[in-house]
Structure formats: C-alpha cells, structure tokens
C-alpha cells in the first residue's frame, strides 16, 4: 500500500500527462468515429443493399486482434509509422462497429407510421431525418457511442506498443519491471475514465429516453467543442513542431533496453538535440521503425540482428556475429551498428537456486527429459535460436510451455508456478531473486552483444553525437549491466536517473 501511494506522489506529473494523452487519443478516435460512423449508419438506412457489406466490414475490423491491426497500420503510408497516428486510426476503426450498427438499428426502429405521417404532411427527406428519425434514434445512437468509447479507453492502452503513449506506457513498463504500483497507476485512471464516460453517456441516454425534447442546440455546441478539442490535440501531436532537429530514440519492452535507450537519448540531448522517447515498443517495432526512418536510434543485440533480421542460422563467436550483422545492416538498409557496449545479454535458462541445488542441476544438458514446467517469452518460444533450436541441440526438457511477457516470467518462477524460464543473462532479477543460470555447455546460444543501431542521417542531424556514443563502447560489463538493471527493477528507481548517474560516472555528461 505504501509503495502504491508513494508511486503516485512521486509521479503525479507523468500520470497526469499520460492520462491526458490517453484522453486525447480516445477523444480524437471517437470524434472521427462519430463523424464517420453516424453518417455511414444513416446512409445504410437509405441504401439498404449496402448494409450487409458495410456492417460485415466493420464487424471484421472488430475481430482483428488490436496488436495485429496496429502492426498492419504501421506499415501503411500517411497514417503509418510509429506514434499516435496509427494508434488513433486503429481506435477509430474499432469504434465504427457499434456506432454504425446502432445508428442503423436506431433509425430502423423509428415508428414507421410516424415517418409515414411526416411524409404525408409534406416533410422532405432531410426534414424527416432531422425532425423525426435522428431525435427518435438518438438514445440508441448514444448507446453505441458509449459502448465504443468504453472499449476505446481500454484498447487505447495497447497504443503504447507502437509508441503512442497513453496509460499503456505505465502498464507495459510496470509489467516489464514487475512494478505493481506502476501497473496500478496505469490502470486506475483508465478505469476512472471508462466509468466516467459510461456514467455520463448513460445519464444522457436516460434524459433522451424520458422523451422530453432534448436541447439539440446545446448538444450540437457540446459536440462541437469536444470535436474541436480532440482534433486540436490530435494535430498538436501529429504535427512535428520541432522540425527536423527532433531525434526519436526507442527501446524494446524491457528495462535494460529502456536504460540503454535513456543513455542514447541523454547523450543526444547533451549534443543539443531535442529527443522524443518511444520506449517500451513491442517486438520488432523498433527495427521496422529505424528501417523506415520513423526512428533514429535504439539499442539492438547482435544475435537478434543475425537471426531475426538477417534470417540467418545462429552462430557462435561474438566478433564474427557482430561483423556479419554490422556489414549486412549497412549494405541492405544503410543502418549503422556501432561498436558493442561491452556486455553479452544472451538468452539463458534460469531456475530457482534451491531447486537447482536440490536436483544437482548446473547445465542445460542436465535438464534433458526432466519434464519441467517451462515459461518463455514470446520471442524465445518460436525463434530458431530460441526454444525450437535448443530442443534440437539438447533434447526435450519441458512438459508444458507457457508463453508470456518477460516481466511476468520471473514472478511465476519465484512463485513456484514454473520450474524454469528463459531469461536474459544480465537481468537484474537474476541477482535479486537469487536465481541460477544453467550453463550452455554445448554452446547453443549465439552472442547477444548490445550495440547502438542508428538510422542513416542521425549523425548528420546531430553533430558530435557519434563521438559520444562511440565513447560508450565497451564500457558496460555484464556485471555492470546486471547492477544497473537491478537498480531499476528491484530498487524501483527511475531508469532516467540510473542512466544519468552511470553516464556521469563515465564523464560523458
């Protein structure tokens, strides 16, 4: 409870900022959803033969998993890239179903004799729509907006996956660091927002249903103000106000990547650049973004580059792998992989120390045929240099494989729900949770030397940054990285502070 309160008091500013971002994203998406969805629903009542097609499309959109939809949208021109644009587009597409469907159904259920009487009295189609159909359908349309908005608030947390910010940042980062207070402060404002939207719109529906004439002028003005606010927020984010000097630094969704991202970001700031941080981005989002020019730098691992990006079989030998990856990055995509930072964060198989000692297990060979309950992170579970390759080399040792977020793996292992997990060799929690790493006695795991990967024009944009980044080369040992990770994960210190302290100790700041 204490950490819960203290997290809030220490991070009010960030929580507020992320909440506002979240509101803005939801507001912009819902505004678009209403502006497009309501007219579309009305159109369907006029062109009924289109209804199955359009409702089919909106239903199908709804069934696309949100992460998949984001990944697809990222690749599209104009709305693509990283950040709020694809996120708002995705939320907008999701919002359509309920709005279109309810508008359509709402107008369809309007008492036909009333419409017929209106027509017989000489009302034009537009007058029938505005005097009879829309007012009568309004409670149902508002219900559609309410359903969409509540879903939208929840779904918007996923936007963090592609660097759009919002409360998802706290949730993903909190899960990654096993920091429950952080997760809670991401979730609570989102819950509050959902409940507020739900309650406000429910009350509004009730008022409309009470049949006394709604004040349409007032409603129109309120909607107008809301739309203007949402659109200006949207423009504020999408327009690049700082111009070409802005540098975008990313990180993968775990603490170490964030720490290293912080270091790159702070060094860029020290070189006079304005930096936008896109941390805790999902899977391959960072690499895709640097490739497409939407991101300037992040820290990649040589093993990942070799297997995931170059699609080559895993190799051993740090220097050999680095050399190969560096040259391929340059040749194929004109990207620069700087000299490795010093540590090798290879994959590892970790167990609780007590268990390992009890069964006298010290190497991966010892595990063969033991039928363990295994937990792997999503990448590890299906990469050729992950579990599938490991089984080929060492033989099967799992009876059951659970795939989950890296942060949750450690908790599950510590709770005894899993026997063994995939881990990163430099993870701070190996120290703090007193885990042991099984020796890779057959030399299966390729090296995962960390190195800064930059886009082609970063150094031209920020003179002096290259020297600063090169100065970091070789400075971070396995031990040092593990310690830095533990500072953030176990001592719950902000990554920015830990990174600054480290850079200062090297006289780089």
């Amino acid at each position, binding site marked *: 409870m204490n950490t819960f309160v203290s997290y809030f008091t220490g991070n009010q500013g960030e929580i507020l900022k992320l909440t506002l971002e979240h509101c803005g994203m939801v507001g912009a998406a819902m505004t678009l959803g209403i502006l497009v969805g309501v007219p579309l629903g009305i159109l369907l009542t006029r062109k009924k033969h289109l209804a199955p097609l359009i409702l089919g499309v909106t239903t199908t959109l709804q069934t696309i998993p949100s992460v998949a939809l984001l990944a697809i949208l990222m690749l599209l021109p104009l709305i693509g890239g990283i950040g709020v644009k694809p996120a708002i587009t995705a939320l907008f597409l999701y919002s359509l179903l309920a709005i279109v469907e309810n508008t359509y159904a709402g107008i369809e259920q309007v*008492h036909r*004799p*009333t*419409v*017929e*009487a*209106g*027509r*017989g*009295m*000489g*009302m*034009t189609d537009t*007058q029938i729509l505005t*005097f*009879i159909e829309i*007012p*009568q359908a309004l409670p149902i349309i508002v219900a559609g907006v309410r359903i969409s908005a509540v879903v939208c608030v929840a779904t918007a947390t996923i936007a963090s996956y592609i660097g759009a910010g919002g409360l998802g940042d706290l949730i993903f980062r909190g899960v990654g660091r096993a920091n429950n207070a952080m997760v809670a402060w991401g979730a609570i404002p989102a819950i509050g927002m959902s409940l507020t939207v739900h309650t406000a719109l429910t009350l509004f529906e009730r008022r409309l249903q009470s*049949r*006394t*004439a*709604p004040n349409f002028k007032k409603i129109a003005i309120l909607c107008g103000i809301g739309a203007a606010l949402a659109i200006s927020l949207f423009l504020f984010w999408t327009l690049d106000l700082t111009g070409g000097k802005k540098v975008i630094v990313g990180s993968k969704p775990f603490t170490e990547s964030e720490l290293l991202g912080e270091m790159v970001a702070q060094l860029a700031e020290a070189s006079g650049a304005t930096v936008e941080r896109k941390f805790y981005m999902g899977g391959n989002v960072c690499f895709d973004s640097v490739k497409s020019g939407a991101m300037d730098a992040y820290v990649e691992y040589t093993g990942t580059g070799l297997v995931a990006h170059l699609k080559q079989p895993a190799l051993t030998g740090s220097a050999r792998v680095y050399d190969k990856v560096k040259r391929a990055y340059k040749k194929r995509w004109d990207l620069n992989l700087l000299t490795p930072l010093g540590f090798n964060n290879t994959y590892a198989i970790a167990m609780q120390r007590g268990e390992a000692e009890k069964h006298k297990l010290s190497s991966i060979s010892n595990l063969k045929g033991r039928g363990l309950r295994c937990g792997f992170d999503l990448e590890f579970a299906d990469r050729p240099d992950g579990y599938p390759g490991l089984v080929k080399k060492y033989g099967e040792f799992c009876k059951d494989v659970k795939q989950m977020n890296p942060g949750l793996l450690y908790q599950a292992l510590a709770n005894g729900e899993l026997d063994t997990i995939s881990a990163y060799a430099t993870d701070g929690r190996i120290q703090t949770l007193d885990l042991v790493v099984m020796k890779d006695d057959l030399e299966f795991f390729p090296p995962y030397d960390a190195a800064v990967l930059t886009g082609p024009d970063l150094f031209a944009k920020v003179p002096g940054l290259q020297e600063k980044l090169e100065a970091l080369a070789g400075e971070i040992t396995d031990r040092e990285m593990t310690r830095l990770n533990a500072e953030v994960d176990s001592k719950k210190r902000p990554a920015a502070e830990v990174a600054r302290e480290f850079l200062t100790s090297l006289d780089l700041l």
Partner: protein
Amino acid sequence: MIRFEKVAVRFPGGVTALHELTLEIPKGQFVALVGASGSGKTTALRLINRLQDASEGTVFVDGKDVATRDPIELRRSIGYAIQGVGLIGHMTVAENIALVPRISGAGKEEQREIAKFGVNRMHMTAEKFLDRYPHELSGGQRQRVGIARAMAADPNIVLLDEPFGALDNIVREDIQDEFKEILGGLHKTIVLVTHDMHEAIHMGDRIIVMNAGRVVAEGTPEDVVLRPKNDFVKKLLGRRRNELQRFAKESGE
C-alpha cells in the same frame, strides 16, 4: 375536387392494388372509403397526396394532374392523419400541431397561434395541453391532436386513414360524433379510409365500398346499406346488417 381517371396501381412483384379506378369526389364532400384490408382503399387515398404514384391513369386535385405537381408542396396543401396518429414523441402537442406551418416557414409566434387555435377547435384547453408530450395524453386526446395537426395549415382537402382505429369502441363513438360536428362545419373535402361500416355510415356523406382493387358499391349510406347492390356488400354488412340498416336510417334522418 378530386378525380380519378382509370387509375391503376401495380406493385413490383405483379400485385395489382387498383384496377382502372374512376371516381369523383366533389368539393366539400365527406367520403368514406370502406373495405377489408387489401381492398385498395388506402392505396386510393395515398394516390391523392402522391404517397403513391399511379401506374396508369391520372389523379386530378382541383383540376390539376397531381403527377405534374411537386409532391412536397402538394402534401403540405393537403391535411393528413393516419392510424395511431403518427404524433412525434419528442415534440409537444403545440410543436406537433404546428409542424406543417413550421416546415413551410411560419414564425414561432404564428406557430403558437396555430397550435392554440387547433387545440381549441378540438375542444381541448390550450393552457392545459399545448406543452404536453404525446405520451402524456389519452388515446382520444392523441386522436384529437392528430386531426388538429392535419388541419393546421387550413387545407381544403383532408385525408384520414383509419384515424380512429386505435381507440376502444366507447371512446371511438364519442370522438366520431365530435369530429363529425367539427368537420361538418368546415366545408372541407374529406376522404376517410375505414374498414368499419358503422364508422362509414356515421361519418360519410357518401360511401364507396371497395374490394380487391375495385369499387363494388357507392352512394349515400342509405343507398348502400338499405339496398345492398350485391353479395359482397351484404357480406360486408354481415350479421350486423339489421343494426347497421337501422343506424343508416337514423343517420339519414
């Protein structure tokens, strides 16, 4: 005056709703179109204000072919009320009554005056009813408002499609009496569609009996009821024949 000349209506799918209908409704007459459902009586009514267009033949209103008139303008010049009244639920009695003047461009005060006049004419108290919503009215009151709305723009022709259909018998007869009295003094051409012979006898100056898209009998209530021209009319009078004949005699006197 309303005139039908060899008017046929065929619906898509081949159903013929009206066969070569020819009839004339003189100015100021109260005509009741009677028939079972599917007889074509409502289709005939809807031809007058172009809610339905003729497949063949011509409908004239005040000497002009309706097909040549703008349907919106035509409808605004003709009063219209239907079964279940079709009052708009989120509008007050005043707003409902003044709807046609409003969409035709009348100002706020004029609308209010029209609404006041309309409810007063229907023997309702303006102060009490003008600002109520339809769901706060009884069935009979709604019916009155529906008629008041049909008459709001002071049209020369009023079309009533089963306007009393939703009322129970006792209320219906009271309201029929009242309407006959109100409408009778206004010298308007009124076309009433009903399936109820009793209502037709009671309200109409003239009755037109329809079946399967054709006129099977027409004349004054006495003509039609006392001297049934054919089996169909006899069947329509049915078991209430004696009662209806007595009623027609009384109404005639």
